[in-house]
């Protein structure tokens, strides 16, 4: 087997093997180190002897022996004591247990997304251990210097060990709340790829792909959690529009003007039944509702066939269950589309009065858009200027400038 193929095989097998090793060794750093050593052995042996039937099990066994060797060599008394405990622990697990269990990865997710860790550390650790991304790749995805990202990971792992963050799936009573934290991490990874908060690139597709991978993994492990299903549906449906969101010149194309033939039919075909499944089970949650909204767009054959009343209704439910100023903004915009711009403007000025979205460029942009639809060009232009004062992203700035130019044109 050629080396590049082996490398991609390692990438596939790594999270599975690592999750089991963390369980067996109860030490992140040790697990990562010995797994790396096992890869080195595999790189040497597999091309000559062939790839073992279950590569993950082979890697776990080999890595475990490396761990035992390493613990035997430990010198100080403190290490010796730890060694004795760890060795007896390892010895009590027969080799048949080197089989990776699906639960191991679930345990790992809950450990990586433990609320006692900073959110950015949760994200980094999840990408490192569950997606198998290198420190360099994660640093690039979040546009932080590599040493900063490395330091973040070291600190997170030190806290897991030092404060003894457990390596377990939370009990039923806590599962919902803890799962919410895990989903938030996955969604954060996705949005960072979909609309990066830093850097020049308007999107980072590879980051979105990792988030979808994580959501798929979660759905495999927790198939009966409606919010997991809802999240997978949401990221698939959002991602399906990736190719249409920017034109050939790299300029932003709004949903209304997107070429629907560019939407990814496979992702939509996978996502829509998931929306149904998520909504069927229990009360619609945060992600299921957003997925349902994305589904309304995905189902419409053209921009004029979008069921805006349905979307406005879904936002109203979302606003009632998960109130936030941004949801209120979306609800106002959707209501404007469904029931006339005046209705949207009334909701927007109510939101404006709360002051909660002061300085958020999309508030002014939404207002400008509704005024434009009413033909109130002068007021629309003023609102576009307000939005331009606050906007950060270059593509959004150029979009708003184009709109402002249109609104300012006499006609």
């Amino acid at each position, binding site marked *: 087997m050629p080396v590049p193929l082996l490398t991609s095989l390692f990438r596939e097998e790594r999270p599975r093997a690592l999750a089991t090793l963390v369980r067996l060794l109860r030490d992140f750093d040790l697990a990562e180190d010995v797994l790396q050593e096992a890869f080195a052995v595999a790189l040497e042996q597999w091309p000559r002897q062939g790839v073992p039937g279950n590569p993950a099990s082979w890697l776990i066994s080999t890595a475990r022996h490396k761990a035992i060797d390493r613990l035997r060599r430990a010198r100080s008394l403190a290490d010796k004591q730890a060694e004795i405990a760890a060795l007896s622990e390892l010895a009590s697990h027969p080799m048949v247990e080197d089989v990776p269990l699906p639960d191991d990865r679930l345990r790992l997710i809950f450990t990586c997304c433990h609320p006692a860790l900073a959110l950015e550390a949760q994200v980094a650790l999840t990408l490192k251990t569950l997606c198998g991304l290198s420190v360099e790749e994660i640093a690039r995805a979040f546009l932080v210097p590599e040493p900063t990202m490395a330091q973040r990971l070291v600190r997170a792992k030190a806290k897991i060990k030092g404060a*003894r963050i*457990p390596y377990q799936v939370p009990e039923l009573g806590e599962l919902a709340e803890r799962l919410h934290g895990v989903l938030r991490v996955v969604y954060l990874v996705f949005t960072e790829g979909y609309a990066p908060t830093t850097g020049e690139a308007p999107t980072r597709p590879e980051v979105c792909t990792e988030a979808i991978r994580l959501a798929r993994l979660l759905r495999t492990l927790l198939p009966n959690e409606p919010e997991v299903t809802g999240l997978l549906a949401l990221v698939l449906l959002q991602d399906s529009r990736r190719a249409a969101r920017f034109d050939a010149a790299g300029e932003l194309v709004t949903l209304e003007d997107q070429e629907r033939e560019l939407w990814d039919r496979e992702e939509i075909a996978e996502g829509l039944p998931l929306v149904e499944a998520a909504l069927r089970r229990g009360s619609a949650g945060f992600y299921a509702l957003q997925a349902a909204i994305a589904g309304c767009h995905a189902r419409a054959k053209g921009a004029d066939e979008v069921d805006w009343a349905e979307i406005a209704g879904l936002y109203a439910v979302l606003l009632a269950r998960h109130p936030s100023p941004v949801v209120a903004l979306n609800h106002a915009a959707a209501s404007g589309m469904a029931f006339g711009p005046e209705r949207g403007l009334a909701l927007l000025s109510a939101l404006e009065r709360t002051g909660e979205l002061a300085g958020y460029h999309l508030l002014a942009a939404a207002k400008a858009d509704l005024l434009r639809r009413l033909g109130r060009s002068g007021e629309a232009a003023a609102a576009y200027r307000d939005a331009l004062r606050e906007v950060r992203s270059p593509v959004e700035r150029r979009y708003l400038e184009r709109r402002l130019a249109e609104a300012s044109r006499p006609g």
Partner: protein
Amino acid sequence: MRMRSFLLWGGVLLATTGAQAGPTAFQRFRGLEGTWVAAEDGPMAKKGDPVARYHLTGGGTAVVEELFAGTPHAMTTVYHRDGDDLVLTHYCMSGNQPRMRAKPTEGTTVSFAFDGGTNLDPAKDEHMHAATFTFLSADEIRTAWLEHAGGKPKTTVSMHLVRQKEDKGGSAMKYLLLIYQDEGSWTGLSEAEQGKLFEEYMTFSRDIKKKGNYLGGEALQPIATATTVRVRNGKTMTTDGPFAETREQLGGYFLVEAKDLDEAIAIAARIPDVRMGSIEVRPIMPTPPVD
């Protein structure tokens, strides 16, 4: 001030609860089976040191108590029934074997009085002459032994013991739970509210003691009594304070044992002041073994 009084009052109340018709004295002794550790620092043992081990013998008809097993102070006492009475024989490190007898009681305190013995003359020799056991809860006892010399009381040896926390698989971790609160918030409460908060602290302390998580806890005097000490170039410098800008001050702490951070967080989330102030959960650094 406030938490200290909670803890003390909590202790007093613990001592007086359970005075009701219940198990016989011997049943209480049988219930001691297991290992007991010192609940506080004392001359014989530091808090948390194993002090006593109880096990049953003779088909459950006698309870053997081993104190300070494996040390030069090791002593054994055997408790068993004699009709309705409870009797003990104490194999003392002073080389004699006093016997004591307790009359039946349904209370939580069992009092033993001298009832003869071997290798001793009660009018002259130093010997243990009386003993009381107070069963505070299923996991907490106080004992007092009265020593006689020359036919008169000489000293009393008291012990406060708690049942050793069961090993929940893997060694437990220690966490310090630091309670930060606005000192003004207490005075802002009505008397009824203060009473309610006190009740909550009492319930909380009692519960973590019962579950074996409790290792210690105190309240601190107000920040106005604090002094900050530094040594620079060999010179000791003290300053009044700190008078930090933050509204929340360190007001007290609990030291607990938990199997992992999740359990420690769950305990912290039940400290009454968590609703007004905040709790910092700090894992205790494991003590490295001394070479």
